[in-house]
């Protein structure tokens, strides 16, 4: 009598193994085609079709998410003043829920105002869009927005928020687009340190931090220094803020510095974005960046204080009147905290002694 398990392996394995080999080869062919073809290749086109089909579901998902965000805000408010809330009646609870909703609207209004301020200041033209989804795979950092080729969006266009650059469009369907964020491990942007003017390549990582590479070790880099787009490569307008230096040390090789940069806005806070379709090539917005980094990361009061400090150090900026175009949104995104803000202002005042870690 034949052994059942042996018989089973003999009868079933060849088919399954053949299928596995076929699928492995097919996958490798697809990977190769994807890597070699341009953004208009068949695999990219197929992805566009699939994402167009999926976009209504993603819109439903974003709508489902909204009430939970409001509930989150409600509980945050409730925990902030529990002694008072314990005495509230059902009527008060209802009003609190309404207040939470109003806060959502107020925050949205502040974000949009900040976005308009940035696009006006840098003379950017483009399309405003809402974020409907974030990346579903855990190894990339992307967002999906609710505007696509039907709204004039194309691959490679830069995307900004009220705080500065957040990424670049990598795929477009008719009604949606996928934006690869600056924090994505595959992303690389030509960036520049605002004060030292040193140019490097800003790359993302899995943990959401940014690294500025290829900056020479003899460059003086300050913690809190603002990193802006360099304008090289022709994709991003020059001088748009990207992040703030958090650490800087000489690399093990000694040739370059290892610079860690914190993005201005955490990616989970993106809700409305602006896809830049055209901009003034001749504009160098580097000097404008300070005000937008401040607005993105501090509340209105601290922003006002910092503005007065910077005004002393940068009279030319005020003379141009450009800084005043940036609204004090007070969104409190938290990307640039008070300590960093203080460092930036001190740096502007010429009090940078001792802040350079590791020396030049």
């Amino acid at each position, binding site marked *: 009598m034949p052994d059942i398990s042996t018989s089973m392996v003999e009868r079933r394995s060849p088919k399954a193994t053949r299928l596995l080999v076929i*699928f492995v080869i097919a996958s490798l062919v*697809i990977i190769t085609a*994807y890597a070699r073809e341009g953004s208009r290749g068949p695999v990219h086109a197929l992805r566009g079709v699939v994402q167009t089909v999926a976009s209504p579901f993603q819109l439903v998902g974003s709508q489902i998410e909204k009430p939970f965000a409001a509930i989150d805000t409600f509980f945050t408010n409730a925990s902030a003043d529990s002694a008072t809330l314990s005495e509230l009646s059902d009527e008060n609870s209802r009003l609190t829920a309404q207040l939470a909703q109003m806060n959502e609207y107020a925050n949205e209004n502040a974000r949009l105002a900040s976005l308009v301020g940035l696009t006006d200041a840098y003379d950017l033209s483009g399309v405003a869009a809402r974020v409907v989804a974030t990346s579903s795979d855990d190894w990339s950092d992307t967002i999906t927005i609710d505007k696509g080729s039907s709204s004039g969006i194309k691959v490679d266009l830069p995307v900004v928020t009220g705080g500065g650059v957040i990424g670049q469009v990598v795929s477009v369907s008719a009604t949606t687009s996928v934006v690869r964020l600056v924090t994505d491990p595959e992303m690389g942007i030509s960036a520049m340190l605002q004060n030292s003017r040193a140019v490097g390549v800003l790359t993302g*990582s899995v943990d959401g931090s940014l690294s500025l590479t290829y900056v020479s070790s003899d460059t003086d880099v300050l913690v809190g220094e603002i990193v802006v787009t360099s304008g090289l490569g022709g994709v991003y307008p020059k001088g748009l803020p990207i992040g703030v230096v958090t650490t800087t040390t000489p690399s093990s090789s000694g040739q370059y510095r290892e610079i860690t940069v914190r993005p201005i806005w955490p990616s989970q806070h993106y809700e409305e974005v602006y896809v830049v379709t055209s901009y003034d090539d001749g504009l160098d917005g580097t000097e404008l960046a300070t005000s937008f980094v401040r607005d993105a990361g501090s509340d209105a009061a601290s922003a006002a204080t910092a503005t007065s400090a910077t005004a002393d150090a940068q009279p030319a900026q005020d003379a141009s009147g450009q800084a005043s175009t940036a609204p004090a949104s007070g969104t409190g995104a938290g990307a640039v905290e008070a300590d960093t803000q203080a460092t930036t202002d001190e740096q502007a005042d010429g009090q940078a002694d001792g802040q350079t870690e590791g020396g030049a």
Partner: protein
Amino acid sequence: MLADEGASRQGSVRLVLPCVVLVVLQLVLGGHLKLFGASADFLLVIVGLLALMRGDVTGCVAGFVCGLAFDLLGSGMVGLTALLGSVLGFAVGRASRSMAEGWAPRLALFAVADLALNVAYLIFLTILGVLDVGGWAVLGRVIASTIADVAVAAITFFLVFGHPRLGRGKRPELR
């Protein structure tokens, strides 16, 4: 004979229904629901479910199809999840032959396979120069991703295999 046909149809419905629900969840919640910063791959749970219920051939096909769909829905390299998904479906389907009854052992098998898939994905991305394998952040992402997948699989497997009648769903036949 009619009873057999009815049972077969009922079994198919019980297999198709969770798959449809998981597909819808992937489309609607895929980019929104995060556990420890990681998204659950609902499609991979389908692969595990089909492989455990139908064996290596179905698992392999499901792995390729679901993996390709996941790649096309996301923003990463197209074809990589399809490659790893077909291997996962094959391996889980093969290993399920000697699997004990119940949802917990099957979940354990899926968890091991899912962890292996995430590590393999990481290695591929490192070879391709997309990621740097070093650092706790990467390891943390692998673990978080696996936990998210296993959490969804635990609910699904409990509902499918934990049910006294569903648990006897169609398995690979020994001829």
